[in-house]
């Protein structure tokens, strides 16, 4: 009886999971249908698969160009992000210096500024860059939004723009990775051995210092969660 319930429970969960991803699955299925089948009457759920849509993409759109743009944007954004955030993260984790807390608070508070707030000025900056450095397509300014422009031609502005957009998060991770280095060891999960983890006593101090001001971030909260959990255990048991 119990076994049957468990099997049914599993079935229900997997059915739910299937429904959950259905919109994407449906889109994927649709991509293999030709136009006639998509709007046929009565509608067909499954029809003869065809690659005609994919050929259309390659033939009729500038797919290679779009792909190149995406590639350029993501590669350069990733590189810039990694380099500067590793550097910054290293400095904050490793060194003691004046205004350290202020700098780190400053950088973290920048995370809160949403894209919408800086969107307009950045657009203006980008459009001026365009005037200055070529890409003299008036269309770009007149008819396209900054977002369209980002995916349209010029890799220059958008690269920085996207780098910037992802950069704070990755910065976070740069430091996070170092903090993670000790928090993920099994011993620390319950806050039992906090000290023994860093590679040296000095490192440990640095980590602790940088932590104190980051209480509002996921990693920290998880850690707090762990501590809470453990304290609770001690009280309970």
């Amino acid at each position: 009886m119990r076994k049957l319930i468990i099997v049914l429970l599993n079935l229900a969960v997997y059915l739910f999971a299937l429904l959950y991803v259905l919109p994407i699955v449906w889109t994927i299925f649709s991509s293999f249908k030709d136009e006639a089948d998509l709007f046929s009457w009565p509608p067909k759920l499954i029809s003869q698969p065809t690659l005609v849509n994919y050929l259309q993409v390659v033939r009729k759109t500038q797919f290679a160009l779009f792909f190149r743009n995406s590639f350029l944007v993501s590669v350069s954004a990733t590189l810039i992000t990694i380099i500067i955030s590793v550097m910054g993260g290293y400095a904050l984790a490793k060194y003691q210096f004046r205004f350290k807390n202020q700098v780190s608070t400053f950088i973290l508070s920048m995370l809160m500024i949403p894209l919408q707030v800086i969107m307009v000025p950045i657009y203006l900056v980008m459009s001026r860059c365009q005037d200055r450095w070529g890409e003299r397509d008036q269309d770009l300014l007149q008819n396209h939004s900054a977002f369209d422009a980002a995916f349209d031609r010029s890799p220059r502005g958008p690269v920085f723009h996207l780098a910037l957009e992802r950069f704070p998060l990755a910065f976070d991770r740069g430091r996070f990775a170092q903090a993670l280095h000790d928090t993920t060891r099994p011993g620390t999960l319950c806050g039992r051995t906090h000290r023994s983890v860093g590679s040296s006593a000095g490192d440990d101090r640095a980590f602790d210092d940088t932590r104190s001001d980051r209480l509002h971030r996921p990693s920290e909260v998880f850690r707090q969660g762990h501590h809470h959990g453990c304290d609770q255990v001690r009280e309970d048991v």
Partner: protein
Amino acid sequence: LKRQYYAWLFLLPNLIIFTIFVVTPALSSFYYALTDYDMIRLSGKFVGLANLRYLFSGTNDFGRVLLRTFMYSAMVVPIAFFTSLFLAVVTSSDLIKGKAFLRALFYWPWLLSPSIIGVSWKWFLDYDAGLINILLLKNGSSPIPWLLDRRLAFLSVVLVTVWNVAGYFMVMFNSALTAIPTEVYEAAALDGANRWVRFWKIIFPLLKPTAILVLVLSTIMSMRSFEIIYVFTAGGPGTATTVLAQKIYYTAFLERKLGMASAMSVILFAILITLSLVQMKILEEET
């Protein structure tokens, strides 16, 4: 002293890029908010608080957009909270096989690009060719105008947003659940209460820090959500799904009133800062 020197050297690229791409635009945004800068003249004069006064004068739909944004947030936050908690509990349960696979599946929507999500759902809920309406037709019922009816479109947007973020918050809850030692579960099991009571009385209180974080993050996310709605409904039908970020975008890049748009973004900024401060305050009290 030399060490200090190196620290600043390492931080320099960081600070430079931040200054150029975040600080300066953010500050100039405040300045533009006080001008009537527009994109056709590419110039503007100082008008003081006229933009803000206009926005709250009640002679335009800004008030309604603001209200709608709050409503959207008020719906997304609780639904996303319970959905992700539910998913986390399901994918952490001992009774379920293939937990890792399920987690990956539920996390999938978070990894997709907003434009893919928008297009997929638009297609899924399409009046003529969407899967749901096709199935309804097959069963002899009439199709539902998901994206054509104002109220349904709004609900659809909420649904899609929840669908998008639930996996992300699920992972947060998952790690919080994993962090609870098995002893707690065992001790709870000895208590004899049923699973439902045990969860809410014993496990859920232990998730409190994560729960608060999820609530605040989802509030901030929903207040600034833009991309998915932009692709999914483009704010329509009419302005039924136009939220604040959308309004800023339209004002800036379609109406080309950069000054007005900046004034709106300053308002958004104020809202988000308030939320973030509340978040920090709560988390401080927690520790």
